[in-house]
Each structure stands twice: as structure tokens, then as C-alpha cells.
């Protein structure tokens, strides 16, 4: 569950963003669209605690994340927020499985190896768990990202352009997969995108301008 109220942010005196309020309960998907420069990525970074807003409230799971100090915010991010990025980033030296397990270790200090294996299996990556991430296709890499975002059962999944580098078919598959998984894991899913292909898939939408 994630809620925001009157969130504003400015990079400089001339560039100010005022974001519409967001209210996304568990299991629901919210699509945030808008053209380049309207602050989509900025909003996502604010929600993920990577940026501090100038004013407003952001509440995740009844926790006002702006009240947390840096170290607690890092820990909270690890446990309650799963982020999926436009490009797939990995620890290149670690295997696919270790990349996913790493996220559980950082957040909870325990290695959820079995769980990582079952999520990867669900996402059709069973045969690739011991490969290096660079050996996978882009679509497969994006699915590893999803597995990593889900490993800690986050309250909120934040996805930044998760489909923009995929072809039509894969884009729809990934989008549906994300929304299904959000329901299954009872997480709030926020997808930030300019990808027109997704607009028809989701009921709840906000357009930034």
C-alpha cells in the first residue's frame, strides 16, 4: 500500500514538479504515464526514497518514509520496496541465482535460496540460474530483475519503463506478469512508462503533465 499527498520536488528554482496524489492499495496496479521531462523517473525515485521531496508526505505500509534516517531508509527500501529498472543491472560477477539471493541477504541478512529458485522457476528461468546475467537475452534479464524485486515480498513494486526495451509480444507478457505477480504477492505495483502499448491493459492511470 502506498499513498502520497502534495508531493513537490525541484531540481532548481526554475524546474518545479508538483505531483498528483497517489493512492494504490495492495494488489492493485497503477500506471503513471507522461511525456519525457514530466518527472516520471523523478516521481519513482521519490517513491523509492532515492530522492527527498521538497514538501509532502509519502506513506508506504503506514510508514512515513520521510521520517526515516538514511540507514533506516536503506533498510526499509530493501525490505518493503522492489524496484525494476528500465535497463537490467546486475552484479556482473555473480550468477543469476546469486544476484537474486543477494537482494534477500541485503534486506534480511538471510539467504532465501529456495525461494529465489522457485521464483526464477515460475518466471521460466529454471535452466539459467547458474549462468552469468550477461549470457541471458534482454527479455530474460528483465525477468531476473522482476525475480529480484519480488524476493523480499515487498509492499510496493516500482517499475521504471519495464517494457520499453522489449518487443510488442514480450512487452505485453512482462506487463501482465508484473500485474499478476502484484496480485499474487499482494503488493502495490506502480509502473512508470511512456509505453503506449500498456495503456489498454490497466484501469488505474495517472498522466503527468
Amino acid at each position, binding site marked *: 500500500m502506498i499513498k502520497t499527498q502534495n508531493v513537490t520536488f525541484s531540481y532548481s528554482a526554475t524546474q518545479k514538479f508538483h505531483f498528483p496524489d497517489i493512492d494504490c492499495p495492495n494488489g492493485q496496479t497503477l500506471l503513471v504515464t507522461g511525456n519525457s521531462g514530466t518527472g516520471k523517473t523523478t516521481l519513482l525515485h521519490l517513491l523509492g526514497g*532515492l530522492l527527498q521531496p521538497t514538501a509532502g508526505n509519502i506513506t508506504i505500509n503506514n510508514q512515513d518514509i520521510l521520517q526515516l534516517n538514511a540507514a533506516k531508509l*536503506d533498510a526499509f527500501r530493501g525490505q518493503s520496496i522492489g524496484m525494476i529498472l528500465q535497463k537490467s543491472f546486475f*552484479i*556482473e*560477477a555473480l550468477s543469476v541465482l546469486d544476484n537474486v539471493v543477494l537482494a534477500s541477504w541485503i534486506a534480511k541478512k538471510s539467504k532465501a535460496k529456495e525461494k529465489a529458485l522457485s521464483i526464477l522457476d515460475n518466471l521460466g528461468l529454471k535452466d539459467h540460474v547458474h549462468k552469468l546475467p550477461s549470457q541471458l537475452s534482454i527479455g530474460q534479464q528483465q525477468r531476473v530483475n522482476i525475480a529480484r524485486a519480488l524476493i523480499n515480498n515487498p509492499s510496493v513494486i516500482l517499475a521504471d519503463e519495464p517494457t520499453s526495451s522489449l518487443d510488442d509480444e514480450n512487452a505485453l507478457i512482462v506487463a501482465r506478469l508484473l500485474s499478476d505477480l502484484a496480485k499474487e504477492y499482494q503488493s502495490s505495483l506502480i509502473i512508470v512508462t511512456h509505453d503506449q502499448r500498456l495503456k489498454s491493459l490497466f484501469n488505474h492511470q495517472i498522466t503527468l503533465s
Partner: protein
Amino acid sequence: MISKIAWKNTWFKPLNTFLSIILLTASVSIISILILLQKQFEEKFSSSMDNIDLVLGAKGSPLQLILSSVYQIDAPPGNISYTEAEAWMNKPMVESAVPLAYGDNYLGYKIVGTTENYTKHFDLKIQQGNLFAKDFEVVVGSNIAANIGLKIGDTFFGTHGDVEEGEVHDHHAYKVVGILVPSGKVADQLILTNIASVWHMHDHEHKGHAEEAHNHSAEEPHVHTEGEEHHHEEVNPHEGKEITAVLLKLRNNMAKMTWPRIIPQNTEMQAASPALEVNRLFALFGVGISALTYLAYGIMFISGISIFVALYNTLKERRYEFALLRITGATKFQLLWLVLLESIFLCTIGFILGIVFGRIGLYFLSVSSQEEFKMAFDPFEFLWKEEGMLFVATLAVGIVAAIIPAIKAYSLNISKTLANA
């Protein structure tokens, strides 16, 4: 888990890692060899010097006299008359005197004519058998017994001079009657007999082949000069006999100071102080050792730069990796630690390899120095303090080299990094 990432990252870019490790290994092995060499060298020199205040010998280089008589390294500067030396050996200020007469070797190991005093002076114990009592009986050092397998009752022929390939004295055989306990001193590498044996060995030769012997002594004048004056028969058994040097322990500090001046003024001999000469030698060595140490620390400095460059260069491509760690909940401190740890791993591997290669290097050095100078080094000695310090220094280099990249990782702006991806 951070250490696992650091470990895997270390091997993910093997070329960078390899370069840094080679440099570290080179510097650590050079420094560890130097540390061990210097320590064992000084130990060997100092332990053999105990109890000797002055050495009487032929005029020439005092350092050469000390090296030849106390350490059996160099050739002696010449011989001295036994009667002349005896006059000083019997003075009341002398607590003990050890005469030495050189002439022959066996398979490169020096045969030294001396008295029982030698063993007392250097506190040598007999492991098996007895001390030499009759002519041509010898006591051998423990290393010789071990290396060439001499046993009690064995006999052998000495070879003239101080090199293995000399002429063999095949008319008198030496007989092994005792083996010394290992002492870590030069005696481990010596064959001891009485002085008369050395004289007789050469008496016989000169009676038999006077002409040949004469040629011989012309070829090697400093080793065996007694041959030249040997033909005429003597009344006093010591008259005209020569020895190589006398080790003296004195009762009187005044004599220690004055004899080195008085003796050369009044006789054909000189008196040299081992302490003084060895200090001079260490000072000479010290310059070389310091130069090599500086060189090795220079290499370590370069390896530090190599680590710095390797880490710094990969920062740009690795910032997404760092951003990723942060969005999965890693703290800034964990990123700092990750970068430092990678450098620490490199340094530890370099240090361990350096110590191992240093030992191997010292082993080969020891083999060749044993062949050439009869001086062995122990490659398995660990100097915890000095090598511990070296490890600390190596780690310090690694940490200093990694500190700037680590701080860059620590202060990485994740939002900006991801937005510009």
C-alpha cells in the same frame, strides 16, 4: 555476502587483478628475502664472533683476515711465523688463544689445523666419537657429515688449496674420529684437525716433490706459503713453521685497544678486531640492503597505484552495480566496504604469494651460497614481527589505494546515476 561479491569481482577482471598481484608479489618477496637475509646473516656473523677480541694474522686487509679466520669465507692474507705468534699468545693478558693453520680442503670443505681450544672457544660439543688426539685424526662439522655422509672411521685424502679441484695429497689419509653437534656457526662447515697434521701433510709433499711443490706455492702464494722456506731442517720443532692466524681472547681491555697498534709496529703481523671489521662490513652491506629495500617499497608503491587505477577505472562501469546494491537496500557503508575489501583481498593474495616466492627465492639463494661460501640460510624461519609489519604495510598500501574509489562509491548519487542510465 559483501565479501563474496568482492571475491568474485576480484576474479571477474583477471587481467587487472593479475597485474596488481604480480607487482605486490614481487615487492613482498624481495622485502621478505632481504629481511630474512639480513637477520640470518647478522646472526651468523655475530654468533661466530663471540669470544674473539682480536685476530693475529699476516699484514694486509684486516677485513680479509677476519673473513678468512673467523668466517672461513675469504682466502687468508698470508701466513705468519708460529714462533713470532707464540710470543704474543703466551702473554699474560691473553685468556685463550686459538691458532689456525690452513692448507687443504676436502670436497671444498676447509681442513683447519687448530687445537682443542677451538672447540672451547666456540663452545662446540662432540656429537659422536672424540676430539682429534693424534696426527691426521679429524673432527667434522655436522653439515659436512650430513651432506657428504662422512662417518666415524671413514678416511679421506685432502686436496691442496681451498678449491675442490686442487692436487690430492694421496700419501696421508685423514681419519674421521668425531662429529660435532650442529651449532649454527661456521664450524658446521669445517673439518678440524691438529696443526701438526697440516704441517706433516705438507712436509711429506715437499720432501717428495720439492720442485712441484715450489711451483704450486708460486701459483697460490697466499694459501700455502710455508712451502717456500721448508727445505732446511729445524732444531726447534716450531722454528720456521707457519700458521695462518690466531684467534685471541684477552683479559685486558687496554690490550684490546693497544695491540692493534703495537703489533704491526713491532712484528710482521697485524691484529684486527672482528667487531670493528664486521661492523664495517654490515655498514657496507647496509647500503646495498637499504637500496634494495627502497626499490622493493618502490615496487609496492607502484602496485598501490596499479590497484588504484584498476579500481578507479572500473568505477564508471560499476556505478550501476553500486546503484543496484543501494536500491536493493545496501547502505553507503556497505559500498565503501565492498571496494576496500576488493583491494584488501588483492593485497592479502599478493602478500601470501610474496612470502611463498620469497621463501623459494631464499632457498635457491641458500643452495648457491652454500656451494660458494659454505653459508646456508634457513628459508623456513618466520620473523613474525618483521613480516607482520610487512603485512600491515601491504594492507595499508591497499587501503590507501582504495580509499578514493571507495569514497566515490560511498557518495554515489543513485537517483542521478539511474536517471542517466
